[in-house]
């Protein structure tokens, strides 16, 4: 996993890639009424609100069935904090994907 934000890429995009790379994450979610999103020149990043470095990051994710939420949340939080620095990471588990 990248430890730094890629040059030329926005923080929100890097966070979105890192979160999607987690095996327990089925996808990102817009949150209640699609409020969790970052608006970038290249288009909105749904499920990640990370505007300025140093500001709290908000995630809304859909998890796969069968993973313990607290453990996954801790791993996601650690992954985001590797990219965004020591900020608060609010995680909303918006839904579960039904695999089976």
């Amino acid at each position, binding site marked *: 996993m990248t430890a730094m934000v890629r040059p030329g890429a926005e923080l929100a995009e890097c966070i979105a890639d890192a979160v999607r790379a987690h095996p327990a994450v089925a996808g990102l979610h817009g949150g209640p009424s699609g409020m969790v999103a970052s608006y970038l020149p290249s288009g909105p990043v749904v499920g990640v609100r990370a505007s300025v470095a140093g500001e709290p990051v908000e995630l809304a994710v859909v998890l796969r069935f069968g993973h313990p939420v607290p453990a996954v949340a801790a791993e996601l939080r650690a992954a985001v904090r590797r990219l965004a620095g020591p900020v608060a990471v609010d995680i909303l588990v918006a*839904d579960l994907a039904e695999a089976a």
Partner: protein
Amino acid sequence: MTNSAAPITTHAPPAQRAKPSSAPARLADDPSHGKTTIAASVVQKIAGMAAREIAGVHTMGGGVSRAFGALRERIPGGGISSTAGVHVEVGEKQAAIDLDLVVEYGAAIVELARSVRRNVITAVERMTGLEVIEMNISVNDIHLPGDATESKVE
């Protein structure tokens, strides 16, 4: 001055039930690192799946949601709703669950309810870290053999 007017807290008294004390509290660690919120539909799906795992549970839901469910199963891509008959209230650390069940004829309902309760509470607490403070089960119908109006929920 007595403490009879002690404020009512939303936290359950500790160690009322025998369960690993680590699981629910993990949601609350490091508040400065951000909070984890679990949507009600997440708890609903976990509870629905866990209840269906128990043999003797025929299907879930009251009359209305089963009628809609029977309709929805016939729609391609509609599938069987895993949340029918499950109502949850989710707080920051705790959850309350209400289940509506239809049981198979021949099942010992008291035993069945006990198994469902145990399985649902275990699944929800293990997967979400929320403490289940209340779990109401209402058995609102019984499925008789040969009564093939509904497909069996596997």
